[in-house]
C-alpha cells in the first residue's frame, strides 16, 4: 500500500524545468517567472494529476516498496562557520596566484538572468537507496543512466528518474557524492 502524503502547497510552483513538460513548453508561458516575481501554476507535465504531490525535504526516510534497506540521511552539518569557507580557486588567468576572483559562471553572473523559484516542486533524492541491477526491471538497455564508480562500487542513476529529481544528495561507497541532471 502506498503511503498517502500530506499535500504541501508551496508558495511558488513553476511548471517549467529541465526535462519537464512537452517539447517547446507550450504551457510554460503561463508559468513565466522573472527574478523575484513568482506566480503559481500547476505542473504541465504529461501525467499531471489534480493533486500536486510534494514531500517534505527533511530527509525523512520511508521504507522502499520492495523493503530495500535505506540508509539514514546524514544530518546537515548546520553549524559550519561559512565565513571560514575560504577554499580558494585559482583564477583562470593561469598566473598561479591564489585569488578569490570568481571563476566560471560566477565571473559573468548577471542577476537579470536569474529566475528563482522555478522548479521548486522537484524533490531531490536524499537517501542512498539502491537496488541490485537485476531488480532494475523498469530499465531497458537503451535507457540512459548516469554512472558513478568508486573503486569496486558502481551505482547507476537512471535519467528516467533523475529527469524529475534533478539532484541526488547521496553517498557512493561511503563517500558523499552529488549527482545533478
Amino acid at each position, binding site marked *: 500500500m502506498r503511503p498517502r502524503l500530506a499535500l504541501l502547497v508551496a508558495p511558488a510552483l513553476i511548471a517549467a524545468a529541465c526535462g519537464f513538460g512537452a517539447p517547446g513548453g507550450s504551457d510554460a508561458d503561463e508559468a513565466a517567472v522573472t527574478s523575484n516575481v513568482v506566480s503559481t501554476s500547476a505542473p504541465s507535465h504529461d501525467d499531471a494529476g489534480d493533486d500536486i504531490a510534494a514531500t517534505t*525535504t527533511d530527509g525523512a526516510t520511508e521504507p522502499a516498496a520492495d523493503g530495500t534497506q535505506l540508509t539514514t540521511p546524514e544530518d546537515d*552539518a548546520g553549524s559550519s562557520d561559512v565565513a571560514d569557507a575560504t577554499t580558494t580557486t585559482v583564477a583562470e588567468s593561469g598566473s598561479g596566484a591564489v585569488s578569490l576572483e570568481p571563476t566560471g559562471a560566477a565571473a559573468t553572473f548577471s542577476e537579470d538572468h536569474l529566475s528563482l523559484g522555478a522548479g521548486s516542486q522537484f524533490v531531490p533524492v536524499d537517501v542512498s*537507496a539502491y537496488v541490485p*541491477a537485476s531488480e532494475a526491471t523498469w530499465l531497458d538497455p537503451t535507457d540512459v543512466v*548516469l554512472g558513478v564508480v568508486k573503486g569496486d*562500487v558502481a551505482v547507476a542513476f537512471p535519467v528516467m528518474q533523475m529527469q524529475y529529481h534533478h539532484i541526488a544528495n547521496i553517498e557512493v561507497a561511503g563517500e558523499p557524492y552529488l549527482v545533478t541532471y
Partner: protein
Amino acid sequence: MVCSSGVGFDPLVDGVQHTFDVAGLYNGLFVMSDRQTGSVWTHFDGTVLTGPLAGTGVALEIEPLIHLRWGDWLEDHPDSEVLAWDERFGRFYREFEPGRPGLGPEFQRTLLSTDDRLPEAELVLGVDTGAASVAYVLGDVEKFTVLNETIGGEPVVVVLDPESLFGIAFSRIVDGAERTFAAGDVDIVDDTGAVWNLDGSGPGGRLDFVTSFVTEWYGWAAYHPDTAIG
C-alpha cells in the same frame, strides 16, 4: 529538450557535505541552493552565483559522471547497483531520450547568449580544461572513437561513443609523461600498453579527469561562449 546535462560533484565544502535543492533557472539551465547557507550554485561548473558563499572563492569539484546507455553500463559493471524506484514520484518518472529539441521561453529568457553554430539540442561532449573549452559533437563520429587532442596547450584524450551517448575526457599525462591512446574493445589503451576503463580507473592507477560531460549545445555555448567545436 532541455539541459540533458549530467554533472557529478564532490559535495564537500571545507570538509563539510553540502546538500542541495533545485532553486531556479539561470542562463538556460537549472541552479541549485545549498541547505547549509542558501547560496545559489550553477550545476554546470559548481560555482556560486549569489548568496552568502558568493565571492568567497568556494566551488564544488567536478567528478566523472558516466553518461551512457544502461545496456552498455551493465556490460562494464555487471555488479552495479541502481537508484531505487521511488514510488512516491513514480508518476513523474518517464522515458527520456536526451537531445530532443524544444526550449521553452522560460528558459530562453534566462540565456545570456545564443550560438547558432550548432542546433540547440545537438548532443555534445563539452570539455573544459580551465584554459579552453571544446564541444565534440557526438553525431559527428560513427563509432567508439578515441581522440588524442591538445586543448589550450594541454594534452587531453577524448573518448566518444555516439551509440551509447557517451563521452569523457582525461589528461594524457600519466606519471609525468605524455601518452597517446587508442580504442580497446570496451576500454582504452595507451602507448605503454596500459589499459584504462571508461571511468578513468585502471590497473595503473587513475587517469586525471578533465571536466567533461555530455550536454546539449545551447547550454554548453551559453556557459562557454568562447568554446571551440572539436
